[in-house]
């Protein structure tokens, strides 16, 4: 039997509010818009929902040149033109030149699928408006063949945004909204445990305290996020760094080992080094 409620997976830690959001979106069949800092697992969420509910996943990654029509279908006029010059028989049926998009594929799925529309804010500002009817009624019209495509099962739609553009109100009104907050220490510990089950308690505690103190450094251009923490711990494990190396009485006074995984901007590294230098002088 397939599961109907999402409660996180063994690879993904979901907070109660996130579970609520996902389950409400699934139950009421509304699209769920997910925002949050980069690296908080917005895209991964769709994969995990599909996995835990055992549904097929259709991913539609949006680029700045994406058009809403790409998700529905495209009419390949150029190959039809070429075929007509060559006198091919298939040129007489326009159906041969309709290329299905991700949305169409999801609509045709035999079981209720999960559809991920990733980074919708990358597209042109009119993009969300062009999808209003499709998301609302879960149907669209193919002008070339004069058929109406209707979803067999309303897909579970997840939309992620990095806030680079504001989305139109009419679009927002049709979605549920969830903002993934940056995890607190407790949740973070769970997340790390999920990814590195054999991690020593000591190293975890030291790594987390260093990580949060780096995050709290004022004036950082790009704060390190969950995915960066996980990368960093992976590095620490690979290099076999002992927890003592991280401790060094006060995390503020030393630059953390392998900081390149946490700070991704030379200005940030510079700022951090300066702060460390000042702290060292003050401490003397």
């Amino acid at each position, binding site marked *: 039997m397939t599961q109907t409620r999402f409660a996180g997976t063994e690879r993904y830690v979901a907070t109660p509010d996130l579970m609520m*959001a996902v*389950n*409400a979106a699934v139950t009421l069949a509304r699209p769920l818009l997910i925002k949050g800092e980069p690296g908080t697992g917005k895209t991964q969420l769709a994969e995990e929902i599909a996995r835990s509910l055992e549904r097929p996943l259709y991913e539609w990654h949006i680029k700045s040149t994406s058009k809403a029509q790409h998700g529905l279908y495209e*009419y390949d*006029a150029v190959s039809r*033109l070429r075929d*007509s010059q060559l006198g091919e028989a298939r040129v007489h049926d326009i159906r041969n030149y309709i290329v299905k998009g991700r949305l169409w594929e999801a609509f045709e799925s035999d079981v209720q699928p999960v559809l991920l529309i990733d980074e919708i804010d990358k597209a042109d500002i009119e993009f969300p408006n062009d999808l209003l009817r499709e998301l609302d009624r879960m149907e669209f019209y193919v002008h070339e063949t004069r058929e109406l495509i209707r979803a067999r099962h309303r897909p579970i739609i997840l939309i992620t945004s990095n806030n680079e553009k504001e989305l139109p109100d009419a679009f*927002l009104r049709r979605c549920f909204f969830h*903002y993934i907050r940056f995890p607190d220490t407790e949740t973070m510990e769970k997340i790390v445990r999920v990814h590195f089950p054999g991690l020593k308690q000591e190293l975890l505690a030291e790594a987390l305290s260093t990580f949060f103190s780096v995050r709290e450094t004022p004036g950082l251009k790009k704060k390190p996020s969950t995915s960066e923490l996980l990368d960093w711990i992976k590095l620490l494990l690979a290099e076999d760094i002992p927890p003592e190396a991280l401790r060094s009485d006060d995390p503020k006074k030393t630059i953390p080992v392998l900081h390149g995984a946490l700070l991704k901007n030379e200005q940030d590294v510079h700022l951090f080094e300066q702060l460390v230098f000042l702290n060292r002088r003050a401490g003397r």
Partner: protein
Amino acid sequence: MLVRFFTDLRAGGVPVTLPEFLGLLEGLQARLAALSPEDFYYLARMALVKDERHFDRFDRVFAEHFAGAEKWFDRLAAEVPAEWLKQLTERLFSDEEKQRVAALGGWDKLLETLRQRLREQQGRHEGGNRWIGTAGTSPFGNQGFNPEGVRIGQAGSRERRAVKVWEARDYRNLDAGVELGTRNIKMALRRLRRFAREGAAEELDLDGTIDSTARSGGLLDIRMQPERRNAVKLLLLLDIGGSMDPHVKICEELFSAARAEFKHLEYFYFHNFPYERLWKDNRRRFSEITDTWALMRTYHRDYHVVFVGDATMSPYEIEQPGGSVEHWNEEPGRVWMQRIAAHFPRLVWLNPEPEDHWQWTPSISLARELIANRMFPLTLDGLDRAMRELKRKSPYTRPDVS
């Protein structure tokens, strides 16, 4: 009851619409949030609020509206059986402490007092030494220091308590009225990007041409599209020195964000108010100056002009010839401002001073009058409004004569 919550939200500045409210009711009907108030909070927030900047407003209205429910929860937590409390103290208290409890009249008296206080107390309480609340030294409440304290309102993990979630107001700094960070400024400046593809269709649309040619069976059908102009031209005029010193950081942030965002960005400095000269380098402000006339000749009227300054000075500096604080100006600042405003139809002024202080400074009123009220506070919200103003086809825009 929920209808009033809906109207309260709208009054509280959360843009909620009827379909969203119906969505919430639908969710309640589907028993998504039947048991816990926490779930109800999450469901309501998810269905009604679509922008994390409004979370804080939502939290405030929610807290206000469900204040009664909160009290009810405190009471529920307070009505624990006396037996249970006694067992708890057996475990927690040392013998010495238990004797002191006995000295106060014993458990029954303590609980009696508690019930009495619960009846007297109306609101939430924190600190202090008498009322029931948190972090105080009264015998009642939690996280307190009184050894015979009765733990109230902390039934489970504190994190999990519903009342906490919205009272914490974690989204406070996402409210739109707050001061800016570089990234936020960039987001706001991006509004100006929008008219990048507006205008007349002057460029060959290759894809469209191929497409429509193929559709019409090979007959050439040319399609045109508007030129893609992804560079808005921006002229930034920054007030520097004197009363602007407290605002240096935010101006730097604005400047660096604008630099990253616009390809055509020009900037000049002025002191307090623009006169006949401006400069680009503050260290050589007296040697390398730019004539304001030259500025207007060099930069075409399609530049968007953004003044940044507090406009806080003596009114003479605007009204009088020779009013400038650092040189003799033949013509008053007012004349120069009028000239600039006439040349550049798209013009706004960003003021780092809080908007509600403006009316108390005469020079700000004068400046606003000169630029037809196009002054906005230097906050995320103000910047947003300013960018909208720049985007607008303003009544000050004359038909282009070039």
